[in-house]
């Protein structure tokens, strides 16, 4: 079954540490699985998942509202699908997506911009 292996990246080490960690994983032969974004009261919680030999390894950190993060398409090109989705739905700025794959907010055709940006009202929280 999936391992719940979670590595949390400290806020002060974020852009450099994220790319460093992802580069280590790529060198070890990990396969990119997904990026998940959750709206939490502190901002946005991002989880990056990688897989090798059917064992998951996850990287987790929290971004404040408006704070940006560097894209990992330089290392894992298929991440552009998840990154564009997070940018379109949540409004998290993602910098330096690979040339030609940054859709500038138009990857998903939405009636309103960043519909999932705000904290959910009622129900969950």
């Amino acid at each position, binding site marked *: 079954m*999936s391992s*719940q292996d979670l590595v949390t990246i400290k806020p002060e080490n974020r852009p450099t540490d994220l790319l460093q960690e992802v580069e280590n994983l790529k060198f070890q032969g990990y396969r990119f699985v997904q990026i998940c974004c*959750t709206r939490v009261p502190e901002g946005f919680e991002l989880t990056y998942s990688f897989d090798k030999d059917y064992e998951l390894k996850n990287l987790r950190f929290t971004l404040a509202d408006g704070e940006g993060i560097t894209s990992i398409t330089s290392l894992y*090109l298929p991440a552009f699908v998840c990154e564009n989705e997070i940018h379109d739905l949540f409004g998290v700025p993602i910098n330096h997506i690979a040339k*030609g794959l940054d859709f500038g907010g138009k990857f998903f055709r939405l009636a309103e911009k960043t519909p999932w940006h705000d904290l959910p009202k009622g129900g*969950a*929280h």
Partner: protein
Amino acid sequence: MGKHTVVPFGPQHPVLPEPIHLDLELDDEKVVRAIPSIGYIHRGLEKLVEKREFKEYVFIAERICGICAFGHGWGYCKSVEGLMNIEIPLRAKYLRTIWHELSRIHSHLLWLGLMADGMGFESLFMHSWRLREQVLDIFEKTTGGRVIFSACKIGGVRRDIEDSELHGIATILKGMRDEVRTITDIFFKEPTSVSRLKDVGILSKEAAIATCAVGPMVRASGIPLDYRVADTSGVYRELNFTPVSTDTCDCYGRCWVRVQEIFASLDMICQAIEKIPAGDIAVPVKGNPNGEYFARLEQPRGEAFYYVKGNNTTHLTRFRVRTPTNMNLPAMVEALKGCDYADVPMIVLTIDPCISCTER
């Protein structure tokens, strides 16, 4: 330097089963680059998890896609059961595996029909779907629905299949083998079909690893990646299962992999029917989900990833689905580079695009 044109392909096109838009940059008749664009069918189903109780949400989860409906229902139930540490009865695991493998057979037969339709071979498309009707009749009799089963619930399954009915299903599937063999052999023997599939849409082993493809897309490029090897929520460990792979790296190989998977699934279901134990089909669920959990499942199109997060209320805070087509889109874009304009429908269909899954 030939004539440079940009042709918009989709979202409505006779060969496309689901709406996807591609901007094809052509140099004479060769595709130089393809830029995908999705979002025609986004329904915001992940956001609905905040508005429906976690026990009711299973009905929405299985409506993410019509073809992989059971897979999504099982994936959701599996992730919540992992989160709440619920152990479901063994009979429920067997039933879920049987329904999922039947789902795989129906999905692959549907895809074969679409490939034939994409080639223009209409009668082969009709025959493939005629075979698929037998599987849909089994679904209708056992779960009450042809496409949306509503068979999974958190804690187990909602309906039982009696042993006499199970033996009836095994008889139907054994009778199907020869017919499936006759129809699927045509894809590999008929010269017009072979010329449309062989050496079309090459995705080398290195490119498959670099684009992180999943499912038959990567299994036809020589990498036997199949999550069923490691899946403990089904009963694949007790059944004779090995991943099917080949190294032709083209559409022909992917077609071959899917056809072999149909036969492997037919075998696995007959084995499961012989081994299924008696017992309960569900356990009661108490309490609310709290914490987070990652789960994975091998759907017909590849590995699907599920993430749930709960905060001890009846509503989950987050439910994320990363579907196999989400990962195969970059692989498709890579395979489209350098191909002929006339081969574009074949390459788009070869990833088995399920755009409604991708966009939810």
